[in-house]
């Protein structure tokens, strides 16, 4: 393993399906011991990028390198050390889960060091046939198939689809341990909160173009959230708006909606000086997020 070289490098990576754009001119590097979130709405080009990293699609232009090897031309040796969960998990319906795990395991000479641990932690019944599994359990099988041999890189396309919240939590714990062992995770998602809680850096893709890459702390500092507060006394919106982090405050029926950007510490301290009956935070939708960060056009808004 070469520690100096990023595990994933994309140079001008472009894919067109005929005249339809998949992803355009993607330049990206993902290093060791990093969970990188690839965030964007449906159709933005996330799955196309992942498929090119996995050697399923041939780039129209540019190149992708994984572990220092060309993702298209040297796809086979790359996969000795890469685990993959596709966006749409398809398995052999007539196989028993344990047979499927054995089958996939036998493609690699190394040991399946995490197999039993993952089966236990994800609480999967491997005695069932695949066709009898629920959507969530199929996703668990895909997670085990991708991670059981502790690969150097995980390339995951919407990996928590179908998992219940408890299992999602367990999955992110497992991913964290994976990162702590120095491995790399490239994870796509269209769910903002999912990326925020699990990733070290995020790349934001929209309409086939990477519009920004930033560390998660920087992202949190600039993220807009909505706070709905029910006061037990009269509070002027103007008082709230004096804080620089507050973008706006407006009174709606029985509560006040406060839109805040970045650090909320000062706001919480100001609110604590009043009688607060109820307080809820609303995570912004991906579209709200894009509007707040990049404006309507998707161009980066630094203001």
């Amino acid at each position, binding site marked *: 393993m070469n520690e100096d070289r990023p595990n994933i490098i994309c140079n001008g990576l472009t894919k067109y399906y005929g005249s339809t754009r998949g992803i355009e001119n993607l330049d990206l590097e993902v290093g060791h011991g990093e969970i990188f979130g690839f965030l964007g709405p449906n159709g933005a080009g996330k799955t196309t990028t992942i498929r090119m990293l996995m050697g399923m699609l041939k780039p129209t232009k540019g190149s992708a390198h994984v572990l220092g090897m060309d993702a298209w031309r040297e796809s086979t040796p790359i996969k000795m050390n890469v685990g993959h969960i596709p966006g*749409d998990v398809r398995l052999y319906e007539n196989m028993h889960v344990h047979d499927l795990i054995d089958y996939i395991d036998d493609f690699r000479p190394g040991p399946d060091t995490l197999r039993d641990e993952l089966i236990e932690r994800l609480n999967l019944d491997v005695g069932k046939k695949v066709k009898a599994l629920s959507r969530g359990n199929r996703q668990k099988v895909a997670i085990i198939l991708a991670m059981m041999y502790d690969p150097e890189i995980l390339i995951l396309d919407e990996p928590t689809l179908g998992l219940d919240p408890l299992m999602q939590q367990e999955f992110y714990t497992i991913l964290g341990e994976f990162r702590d062992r120095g491995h790399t995770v490239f994870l796509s998602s269209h769910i903002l909160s999912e990326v925020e809680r699990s990733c070290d850096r995020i790349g934001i893709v929209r309409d086939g173009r990477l519009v920004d890459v930033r560390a998660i702390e920087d992202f949190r500092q600039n993220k807009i959230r909505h706070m709905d507060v029910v006061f037990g006394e009269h509070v002027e919106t103007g008082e709230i708006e004096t804080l620089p982090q507050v973008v706006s405050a407006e009174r709606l029926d029985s509560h006040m909606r406060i839109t805040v950007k970045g650090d909320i510490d000062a706001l919480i301290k100001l609110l604590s000086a009043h009688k607060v009956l109820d307080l809820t935070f609303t995570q912004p939708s991906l579209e709200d997020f894009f509007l707040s960060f990049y404006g309507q056009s998707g161009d980066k808004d630094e203001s």
Partner: protein
Amino acid sequence: MNLNLLRRSIADKRLSILVYAIGVAAYAVMILAIWPSLRENISALNDLWQSYPEGIRKAFGGENMSFATFDGFLSVEYFNQMWVIVMTAFSISIATGAIASEIEKGTMELLLAQPVSRRSLLLTRHLFFELGLLFLIGATLIPIAIGSPLVSGDMSHMGLLAFVVPSFLFFTAIGSATFFFSVLFNSRGTAIFVSLGIIIISYALDILAKINDTIGNVHFLSIFYYWDPYRYLHDIDFAWGDIAVLVTITLISTAAAVYRFERRDIAV
């Protein structure tokens, strides 16, 4: 070649191959069983055969073929009819199931996420198909080899040997061409439709060319031109010319399938 993939292919398809094998063996046993009673009336049967127009006789067994021999009867009543249909169905089923079906079902993505090259995947599936073919040919010929001395005595084991190689290569060539279409299309149905369409056209061309001399000069375009069971069985003709053509079709089709598969996008 990938042993893990080969083992899995065998495990997945063993039941269907067994059903095919029981089918071809059972039909062979049935042919053996009815031959003694037919042989008693063979001169009438042969007269009927000889009364058919020359073109029809050419088309369904050969102008000079005699119904009075077991190999002639076997060629017309089995190898040129039911057997060729079953073996073609097997070839198309396995070849389209190997690639197009996996792409259509999305399981190709799971396979190609493993350290197995596309070339290795295709050639392993091709090898599995060839092993299946050999098994079915064995299931057909073993009952005939054992049973024919008991019912006729005019069946040469050398003739059976001469039949094995071109027959294996004939269906290998059909399967290899189907592998190419299996790689070309995302849908198994389309791959079956195109492969079957070409085989039916090829078969029709063979029949028409035998019946009608005016199109006889394009007869060589039909793959059926290169497979003549009666000639192998009766004349003990090892048919090196047919073998050369069938090997060429197999090599070109397989190379084209590998070339295309290594360059195509895999999209569900």
